[in-house]
């Protein structure tokens, strides 16, 4: 079975779906791996490394015509056309928000596996690209916040006086949020975390941070995700946050509800109440942002407050983000093709859950 790794073409995307180390493992497992030239360059993986791993360097067309194509971002319209009929495609396909792509893929008879649709069950953890990329995003968000803040994160007592530690608030303590908490804590900030899921309090505290009590408790769904708050609850949350937020120097928001626009946590008035120089990093920008004033993809200063709505943070740390993603893909491939040949068992929870298009039809 031949696996193709085309170069990512989405703007700003520096990751690659397969890194040389993983390519080598696939080759060893009996797969044939073809990599588009320069596919790994932006992620600091040179063509030589791929060649050394036993992959063949090819042009785009050949990479796209493989039995299985692995990518990070969903394919563009042109790219979809390059896929062989019946081919397997693995990527973030955004099935919940981008019906067009899925339909196109289905029409072309492509068997599409969406990395974000892999069920979050224990057994599927090695394939969980949402987790691995959120880890990168959470870490990076803190670096960005620290970089933009005109202040130190840690406390310093020096001959020129004492520098107070930055107060950092992390809203939404899922994978990215927890990583952000851990990283900010490491840097010496005074960190508070908040989430609507009740179990998170202990998790936040297990990282040495404090849990911000807002008096709002949501529920956890079966998959471990949060249920969306009711409008009144949202109202209360916004009001509470507006009162507490001026205390903080940096706010990192990561709150998401799958398939829904990101919950609005920080109203414009709350931003205005913050001190000059404060920073908000909104990791939910892609889903509309947790902050009312977030402009997805942009960084802006609003009344002295820096609002970072940058998208695709994992792509800014492409080497490790790609490594982790490639391992996720590897785990999925090993699941789908246990001994080098595809053996799709749609009775399997993972295969069925991740598969979003299947020859001519979009599964419900």
């Amino acid at each position, binding site marked *: 079975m031949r696996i193709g790794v085309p170069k990512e073409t989405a703007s700003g995307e520096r990751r690659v779906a397969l890194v040389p180390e993983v390519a080598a493992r696939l080759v060893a497992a009996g797969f044939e791996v073809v990599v588009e030239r320069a596919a790994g360059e932006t992620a600091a993986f040179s063509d030589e490394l791929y060649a050394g791993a036993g992959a063949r360097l090819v042009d785009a067309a050949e990479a796209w015509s493989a039995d299985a194509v692995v990518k990070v971002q969903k394919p563009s319209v042109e790219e979809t056309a390059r896929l062989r009929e019946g081919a397997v495609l693995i990527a973030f396909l955004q099935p919940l928000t981008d019906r067009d792509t899925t339909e196109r893929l289905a029409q072309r008879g492509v068997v599409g596996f969406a990395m974000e649709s892999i069920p979050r069950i224990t057994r599927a*953890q090695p394939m969980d690209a949402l987790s*691995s990329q959120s880890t990168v995003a959470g870490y990076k968000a803190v670096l960005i916040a620290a970089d933009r803040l005109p202040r130190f994160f840690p406390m310093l007592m020096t001959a020129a006086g004492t520098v107070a530690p930055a107060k950092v608030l992390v809203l939404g303590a899922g994978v990215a949020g*927890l990583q952000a908490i851990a990283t900010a804590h490491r840097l010496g900030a005074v960190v508070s975390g908040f989430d609507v899921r009740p179990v998170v309090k202990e998790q936040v505290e297990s990282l040495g941070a404090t849990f911000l009590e807002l008096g709002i408790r949501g529920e956890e769904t079966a998959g471990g995700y949060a249920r969306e708050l009711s409008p009144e609850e949202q109202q209360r949350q916004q009001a509470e946050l507006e009162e507490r937020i001026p205390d903080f120097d940096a706010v990192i928001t990561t709150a998401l509800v799958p398939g829904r626009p990101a919950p609005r946590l920080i109203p414009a008035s709350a931003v205005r109440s913050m001190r000059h120089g404060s920073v908000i990093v909104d990791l939910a920008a892609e889903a509309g942002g947790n902050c009312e004033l977030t402009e997805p993809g942009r960084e802006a200063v609003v009344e002295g407050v820096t609002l970072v709505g940058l998208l695709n943070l994992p792509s800014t740390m492409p080497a490790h983000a790609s490594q982790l993603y490639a391992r996720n893909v590897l785990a999925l491939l090993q699941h789908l093709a246990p001994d080098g040949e595809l053996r799709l068992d749609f009775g399997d929870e993972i295969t069925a859950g991740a598969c979003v298009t299947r020859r001519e039809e979009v599964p419900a």
Partner: protein
Amino acid sequence: MVAFAFSENTVNLAYVFAAVCFVFGIKMLSSPTTARWGNRVSAAGMLVAVAFTLTLAEVDRYWLVAAGLALGAVLGAPAARLVKMTAMPQMVALLNGAGGGAAALVASAEFHRLAPLPGDLPADTLVASLASALIGGVTLSGSIVAFAKLQELVSGRPVTFQHQQAANAAVLAVALLCAVAAGLTEERFWVVPLVGAALVFGVLFVIPIGGADMPVVIAVLNAFSGLSGVAAGFVLDNNALIIGGTLVGASGTLLTLLMARAMGRSVANVVFGAFGQVAVAPGTAATVDGAVRATTPDDVAVMLAYAKRVVIVPGYGLAVAQAQHDVRKLADELERRRVDVRYAIHPVAGRMPGHMNVLLAEANVPYDQLYEMDRINPEFEQVDVALVVGANDVTNPAARNEPGSPIYGMPILDVDHAKSVVVLKRSMNPGFAGIDNPLYADPKTAMLFGDAKVSVAALVDAVKSV
């Protein structure tokens, strides 16, 4: 037996020497490094006491004595050499019974000798000899029953019947009445029913107690055998017997109390609890289809201190307890003792990717001591102790063995392949996945219940004092 005879005073001095040996011997038992020599010092004291006794002028029936000693040695030595390590508890029970029986017999014989000499039998000697016979008898039969239970000659389960307590009280009353009668009448005969009743009481005393509680019972009987020795010492006015017996009595008593405490129960509960059922303190040891074994920091400390390789398996509980600094301290302490310490980090230990890394880095654990699952798993077979600190799901063998389990298929840390496993957690509650962990019922697993930070700190202290 020897050509010369020492004076009684000299022999008494020898007894003092023997007593000093016992004291020293027990003192040396307080450290594993000197314990073995301590036992030998005690044995040497015993040898001196016996040897000097033999030189007493009044001991003239040499052959009888020699035969007795030889027979005892011939029976005792091979048994001790050949018994399997796992059968040690039974062996100790049996030996204990022998000691108690000897005390009962010596006291009876002495009573038999002294009773017909009216006026010559002071009250204290009388009381002491009868007490020795009574306690020795109980020790003998009780120990035999304990042995039988442990050896599974009879069922290890508690044997109960109606009016058990009444029966016990009756037998004990008979024994005491015999003693009173013997004291008042100074009639040799009474000692026979007395010892008889003692033997019956010993049986009744032990049969209702379950096999798992036998170690406590043996400690109780150990204390009894010491006391019967003390009583015999008062009869014979022999300081070696008094001191030796007292030491044994103190040891038995303390061990009884400590063991009962370690089981989270009162002595009374152990000894009389079985009349009802054995109630397990809630939250300290529920069961995962089978009993779990709770342990103490001291015991774990010695396991760790004398291990060659220890692998620490941190989990979410370590994070909750914020025990990272204490764990680091424990590892330092073990490394100082040249134990090889590694950390086995499961990919999903904790609640976020890299959770354990963050915490261990905070405690400055060197990165090269952190082992990924794939690297450490093949090594568990050579690991003496796997110390699981607040991890649960990531060690759950159900992921390997039980296709129905929600975590089936997840690769786990094979701690169950280690020679022994110690799990630190607060209760029998499950972890993230909400499922039972059969590891805890594994015979080689011991549970150290409590907050991980507190437990690990206790381990650090305990390791230091090993």
